[in-house]
């Protein structure tokens, strides 16, 4: 009761002002107030972030799907296989310089850049260190081999898989030893003497002239049938002699009737 009396006294003291304030006109909300509130709620719902487990799932599920797709691509990508390593950056393949006598020669490693590997994709493998001797053991002597594509191939197939070497910098070019028995392009002495107009048969210590073509170089030089050719341009020749490079026949030495004659050619 005391409280009510206090309130009443307070109102009475300011009764005139209270009446003035209470008589102020009231404003109303606009007619579309409910609609605008509903629209705001709908708009806020769109922007509300999901909470709890639902919010976590909205992040985790797309992330897991992305990881799965990425992993599948990585595993199934044929360009990233084991036997087709590729590189987009400068790798270094270390090989050892070959020697003609590998057993006695000291081995000094040389480095060959491997930036031009025949590939079409990025590398996911570390650089391979290929000993050159292994390469040489499975390659043919005499330099790089020609592959089926017509170009110089530095891909060697061996029992240990495929080894790759940079195109144009094949270690075979300068390292493969040249065998003395290797077949070389040349011209036989028979062909040479035939062009001079001489047909011959092998004699014990020379080439016995069987016949000389009329008006040939040999005929003009005075070579006659029955002569035994001992040398050409001062070099001893036999029936299996092969000549290399360019040849200018200048003179022949023949034995005729026990005499040795030097007959100049090309007169």
């Amino acid at each position, binding site marked *: 009761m005391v409280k009510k009396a206090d309130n009443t006294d*307070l109102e009475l003291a300011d009764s005139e*002002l209270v009446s003035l*304030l209470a*008589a*102020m006109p*009231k404003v109303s*909300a606009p007619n579309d107030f409910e609609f*605008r509130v509903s629209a*705001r*709620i709908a708009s806020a719902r769109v922007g509300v972030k999901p909470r709890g487990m639902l919010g976590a799932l909205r992040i985790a599920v797309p992330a897991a799907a992305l990881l799965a797709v990425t992993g599948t691509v990585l595993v199934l990508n044929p360009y990233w296989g084991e036997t087709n390593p590729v590189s987009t950056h400068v790798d270094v393949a270390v090989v050892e310089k070959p020697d003609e006598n590998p057993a006695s020669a000291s081995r000094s490693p040389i480095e060959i850049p491997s930036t031009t590997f025949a590939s079409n994709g990025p590398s996911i493998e570390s650089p391979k260190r290929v000993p050159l001797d292994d390469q040489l053991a499975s390659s043919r002597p005499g330099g790089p081999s020609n592959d089926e594509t017509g170009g110089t191939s530095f891909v060697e197939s061996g029992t240990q898989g495929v080894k790759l070497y940079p195109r144009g910098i094949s270690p075979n070019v300068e390292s493969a030893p040249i065998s003395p028995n290797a077949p070389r392009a040349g011209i036989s002495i028979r062909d040479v003497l035939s062009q001079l107009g001489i047909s011959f048969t092998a004699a014990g210590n020379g080439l016995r002239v069987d016949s000389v073509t009329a008006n040939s170089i040999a005929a003009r030089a005075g070579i006659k049938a029955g002569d035994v050719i001992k040398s050409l341009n001062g070099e001893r020749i036999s029936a299996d002699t092969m000549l290399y490079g360019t040849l200018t026949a200048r003179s022949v030495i023949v034995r005729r009737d026990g005499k040795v004659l030097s007959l100049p050619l090309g007169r």
Partner: protein
Amino acid sequence: MAHDAFHFPTKEGSTFQMAEEKRSDHELIEATKNGDESAFTEIVSRYKSPITNYLYRFLNDYEEAVDIAQETFVRVYFAIDRYHTQFAFSTYIYRIATNLAISEIRRRKRRRLFSISGILAGDNEEPTEFEIPDERRLPEDELLESERDTQIAKAIAALPEKYRIPIILRDVEGRSYEEVSAVMDLGLGTTKSRISRGRALLKEKLREYLQ
């Protein structure tokens, strides 16, 4: 409940009382929690004009008042699960509206880039701050106010917040002292003191309209 029987003055000055057969605020809140959208619409319809009028007197800007009133109901909707029925819903929604209005006033102050404050000689218990009144005209289509009403509105809008809020709630909206203290989260004595101090300030400003 007392808050459900609250009388809302109408624009014409008459009063209406919510029919007893209508659902109470708490019943509407529970229905809204259970997904009844029409129940929340009824809450909005029930409180939209009192909240708009309260904010209009507080901000002295009708458009801002409507905007903040709508935002008030949006906040209520999304926080409805955290509302406890041991508190009167009217107190709850007035407090939300008050906090939003205070934030709006502070935003206005930052926008204006200046403020004036001073100490008002008077009762020695609390310093008083002056605020620059909003000189914008009231919407004429909403209010056909007399010159007296306009001056009263300006005087209210010029009151410091701590006096303006209880004066509007008590003397304009007609809320009880207990409700006003609950909205402001102050003790009853402090609330009455502020109301008394606010009235004193108003009487000085509205001297010509008082005998």
